[in-house]
Structures are given as C-alpha cells and as structure tokens.
C-alpha cells in the first residue's frame, strides 16, 4: 500500500492541463502549407501514394493524405508541414488545403446540427467500430482516454454498448466483411446520433482506396458530423475536433 502511494506521488501530475493549446513534441506533421513557388507540379502530384495532391490550384486533400511527408521532402520550397494538429472539420471540402492558404482548419458552425450542443454538450458517449482499421487509430483513440489526454474530463467517453451511445466513431477503410456488422451497430444507436470518421482510411479509404475488399456504401448513406484526419489520428486532433463539434456554435 505504502509503495503504491509512493509511486502515485512520484508520478505527479501527468495530464495535459489545456488540450487546446498543448504543444506536440518533435516534428509532428500537422496542417500543410503550400507556397506559391513554381515547381514541376505534375511530378509533385504523381509522387503521392494516395493521390491526395491535385493541380489547379495545387492542393492537398487531408482526407486522403497519409501525412507521410514525402511531398515536402521532394519539394521543400513548395510544401511544408506545420505542427498544427487542429485538423478536424465537419465539411469535407475544408479538408482540402489549397496553395497559399495559411488559415487554420475549422468546423463550419452552420453545418452543425442544432440538437448536438443541447444533447451532447456536456456528455457524449461514443461507440467505436473498427472496420478494417489497422489498430493505429484504435491505439490513439484509446490514448485519448489515458491519464495524459484524459478526455473523460470533458464528459466524452467510449462505451461498450451501442444502446448507451450517442454516436459512432468509425476507423478503417470499411471492409466488405464489416459492412453489415457496422450497419447493425449504427441501427442500434438511439436517435439523435452522430457519425465521426477517424483517420484517413475511414475518410477516403486511404492507401486501400479502390480495393475490391472494401464496401464503403455506408459512408454515402449518412451525414458525417466530423472528419478527423491523420494516419493515425493524433489524440489532440480528435479531442479538439469533438470539443468543437459539441460546443455552443456561434453562427
């Protein structure tokens, strides 16, 4: 018992006091910035493993990007990655970062359904479904609840039963073999409910895009309330995205 207490005291304070302002250590690749410098744009677009780069104007779709950073290594004057982890949004188009764009990525308050703040503003229970996820976003979603990120302090928690949930967090590119269990799980969640896509694989299929082993029809059937880019998502990207979704929207 005493030893336990000693360890407890020795651990000190581990949680991040302000998750909206925390600085991520090291060389995190967050929101990219694309300069107006002239480069061989076609060559640049071609090197991307997931076709995340489009031309005219040159842009990166964070819903497809795996954040591998290879474009910035090959064209350092053209593309750089900032450590800005605030990448989540509810508008699919806002995930596309265009050349010259410096402003941060935000949610569109107009698109946030009215009932979300009222129902979920101070308590949001989520059911996670991995549908072909590679266990990296799953690890990071678990990390959201650990003593460092401590998402539970905001009333946001993952629950076991869809019956107790207010929404669904999907990871993975959605395999054909998981299409039906995913649907069953969604149907079991009471209304009103939200859908969050966590990670590049969930948002676009990522590197698995086009595989005949996928069935992504679920995504096109429903309104998506939040897109959280990353490969895997960073816990701070997820927590801040969800907090922005459930807060009182100023429209």
């Amino acid at each position, binding site marked *: 018992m005493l030893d336990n207490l000693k360890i407890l005291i*020795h651990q000190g304070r581990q949680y991040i006091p302000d998750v909206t302002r925390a600085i991520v250590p090291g060389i995190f690749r967050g929101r990219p910035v694309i300069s107006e410098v002239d480069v061989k744009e076609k060559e640049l677009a071609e090197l991307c*493993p997931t076709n995340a780069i489009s031309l005219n104007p040159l842009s990166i779709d964070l819903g497809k990007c795996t*954040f591998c950073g290879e474009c910035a290594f090959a064209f350092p004057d053209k593309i750089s990655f900032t450590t800005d982890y605030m990448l989540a949004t509810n508008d699919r188009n806002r995930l596309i970062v265009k050349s010259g764009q410096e402003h941060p990525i935000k949610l569109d308050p107009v698109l946030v359904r009215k009932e979300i703040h009222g129902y979920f503003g101070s308590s949001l229970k989520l059911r996670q*479904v991995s549908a072909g996820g590679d266990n990296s976003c799953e690890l*990071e979603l678990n990390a959201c609840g650990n003593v*460092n990120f401590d998402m539970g302090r905001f009333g946001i928690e993952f629950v076991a039963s869809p019956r107790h949930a207010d929404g669904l967090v999907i990871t993975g590119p959605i395999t054909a*073999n998981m299409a039906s269990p995913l649907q069953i799980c969604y149907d079991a969640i009471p209304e009103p409910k939200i859908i969050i896509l966590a990670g590049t694989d969930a948002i676009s299929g990522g*590197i698995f895009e086009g595989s005949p082993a996928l069935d992504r029809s679920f995504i096109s059937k429903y309104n998506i309330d939040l897109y959280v880019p990353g490969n895997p998502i960073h816990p701070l990207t997820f927590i801040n995205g969800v907090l922005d979704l459930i807060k009182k929207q100023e429209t």
Partner: protein
Amino acid sequence: MNFISVRNHQTIPLSGIPMLDYDSFLELNVFNLIREKGAHCVNYFGFRLDGLIRLVCCIANDESHSIQVSSSAVPRMALPSFSKHNLVFEKFEREIHENFGIAYTDHPWLKPVRFPFNRFDPGSRIADYPFFKVDSEELHEVGVGPIHAGIIEPGHFRFICNGEQIVHLEIQLGYQHRGVESLFLEKNKLLQRCTLAENIAGDSVVGHSLAFAHLWESLCKHQTGDHLKMARTIALELERIAIHTGDLSAMCTDVAYQLGSAVFGRLRTPVINFFQKWCGNRLAKGLIRPGKSHFPFTRDLAIGLMDFLDEYENDFEDISKELFSLPSALARFEKTGVLTTGQALAIGTVGLSARMSGVSRDIRASHPHDAYEALDHQPVLKTHGDVYARARLRKKEINQSINHIRHLIKILAAPEVYDQNPLKPAPDSFCVSLVEGWRGEICHCAITDGKGELIHYKIKDPSFHNWLGLALAVRNNEISDFPIANKSFDLSYCGHDL
C-alpha cells in the same frame, strides 16, 4: 534432397526453387524438413502460374540459420494434406483451399480462414461460418463479436461452455480483410508499397515495414550501411518496448489494478512520443524506407533517448515490482490461459507466444538481420505458458531491449548518405524476408516476373499461428478469465486478415 537452402532475405532466381511432384513435395516437407531439430514453417502458399497452382513451402531451420524452399505445381484437384501428419500446416492449407479451391481429402478441419474478396467460392459468406457444434443438454454456447466492448478490432469468438467453464473456443476472423496482398501488386509505386507495409498492422509498423524494406533491398541488390542497420534495430526494439508497456497496462486494467494500468499506460506515452520526435509519427509511420531514410538517428536523438531510458527504467522497475508482488494480480495471472510446450510445438506458435511456453523461437537469434548479428541476442524464455509467463516475458524483454538500445547507441556508426536512385527489382526472382516483431516472426515473400514486376506478394503475421494458441489456452478456464488471457496474447486481427 530437392530443396534450395536460402538465408534470410536472400534473393534467388525463381527457377532455382526445385519443382517436385506433389507426393515427393509432401514427403520432403512433412517427413523430412519439418522434423529436423529447430525447424518451423514460416510460409506455405500458392499462386497461379501458367494455368497451374504453384505451391511454395518455406521451412526455416533455426539450427542451420537457413530456410529450405521447395515447390510443386498442381492443377485444381483433390490432394492429400500435409496437416494430417503435422498440424503446423493446418492454416496454410485452409488458406490454399479457400483461395484456389484445392480440396484436401484428409484435412482435419477445412474451414474458411478470412473470406477474402477473391476467394475461390464467392458464394461462401462470412455470416455463415461453419462453427463447431456440440449437441448437449448441459453445454451452452456464447457468441462474442465481431464488435467487442471497447476500442478493439473485430473478430468473432464462439465459446462452448459447461456452466462458467470454457470447453471449447473457436475464433472466426476475416472481418478486417482489406485485400493487402493484392494491393501490393496493383499499387506499383514504391512509396505506395511502403505505405501498405506500414498499414498492415499499426501496432507493428516497424516490424512489417522492415520486412518489406529488407525484401525490396535484396530484390534490388541494394546494400545498406551500418548506421541504417543500427537505427532500424533501435526502432524495432523501441516498438517492442512501447507495445509491451501498453500491454502490461492493459493486463493491469483487466485485473482491475488501477495504479498499474495508469502508470504503465503513461510510461508508454514518452516512448511513442520519441518516435514522433524522430520521424514525426507516434507509431513510426514514415520512418522505414527501402534503401534510405529521411530521418537519420542523430547524436541529439541518441542522447535524448539515453536520458529518457534512464527515467523510464526507474519508474518501470518500481511499478513492475509492485505488480509482480501483488497477490490479487498474481492470483489472476498464474495458471490462467496455459499453453503447454507440447501444444505450442504442435501448432507452430511463434515469437512471444512460443517463448512463454519454453519454445525458443526468435528470428533475432536464429536468422539475424540488421544489427542483431553483432548483438549476440539471447532469447528470453519462460516455461509455464500462462498469463503470468506472458507478463514476465514482456517485462524481461523490455529490460533486454533497453540494454540492446544502450549498447547500439554506444557503438553507433556515422550516418551514411544514400543516393536517391530508384531501385529496380531483379527479374524472375524469389525472396523470403523474416523479421522478429514484438509479437514474433513476420514473414514477407515476393516473386517477380521477367520484367522485375511483382507477380505475387505473401505476408504472414505471427498472429496467423498464434490465434489457435489462444483458443487452446483458454480451455477449462472460467469464461471470465478470457479477457485477460486474450489481452496477454494481444494478437492482431488486421495482420491476420490482411
């Protein structure tokens, strides 16, 4: 003898693999190669070539540090099975059956493996998996999954129980099937293939991407320098420390030891944050690239890592001491989920799941790659095969990994400069690559055509064998002990389903 002996990630011409008629092929592998001391099957697969199904069997021999490769070409027909004589082949043959429709006449349970999109029988459905059934008034069934309580990948567990006791468990997988092996052929840019390798299993990013990098470098006859080899070894050992620490946390959670769960959990954070400092990604995605690295392991990183390991070790020893002397935790760990040495050998478990049952299987020692050759790595062994053995093994392996890293940092070679010339794989070639990830041996095989293009890519995650180990280990346990037994194996769903 009609096989060719190769070393780990050595490229040979495809024509160098001897072709046998099926009976001699069976005889050779089942009655000779696999029976030798230190032998285990690292891969056995089929692929379509010239209208036939070409079977390739790779038996690694840990004593001679070589892999014996042989092959046979058969039309789609009924064949006698390897599995009738030796169960280590059971899943490989189920896969060959599922993919190519080869009907084995005497396979003990020819069940589906993962319902891949290109399965031979497209009419078979994952919802209709043929579970083992017992007609009994006294026994009942418990079905769990595919979606589980918690943030975890999907898979279905079907228990047959006598009251609270598990009589039989059958594990049905396939829900995570993304078609990875086919995508390796279709997505033909090297960067796409690297990305695929990194996304096979997100908890074994370094392990799988290293298996791919070795294989690709070998196919392209590319030599890596000492610095890169050392840096890669450090990354692989760091991944082991990170996941083992996280697993110890999860095991504490499952036995309701809150302090252990919190402290091991928070100890994992700086390990993965170190990966972020090194390569910008907490799970090391982007770190390993064939023939080069964007992220040299600098002096500053080395110093930072040394300091961090000292800090980590103090806290880790404190909490480990508590955990392993806590009667309430030990009562749940000891004699729970036992896999005997005999069972482990019979079904061919690998890695941690073998070493905890006294079976010394560790690619780092038997088929060393990167810096392991010079490290003189001695596998940590436990004999009891229970949850306790798996927890202790993790603890000891973390200590060992820390020592390996410290040693490597001391002798770290200067970084090399790599030219960025694209690598081109040799035509008509075959290569098998083995890496000891934290779960165990990861095996990647590739075959190229006359133009050097991939025509077959085969991946085997250690979970492929080890899932059956879990199913056997929980027999006669209380069903309430299943979560801790499962967590202590911590097997991969996506690595299995591919």
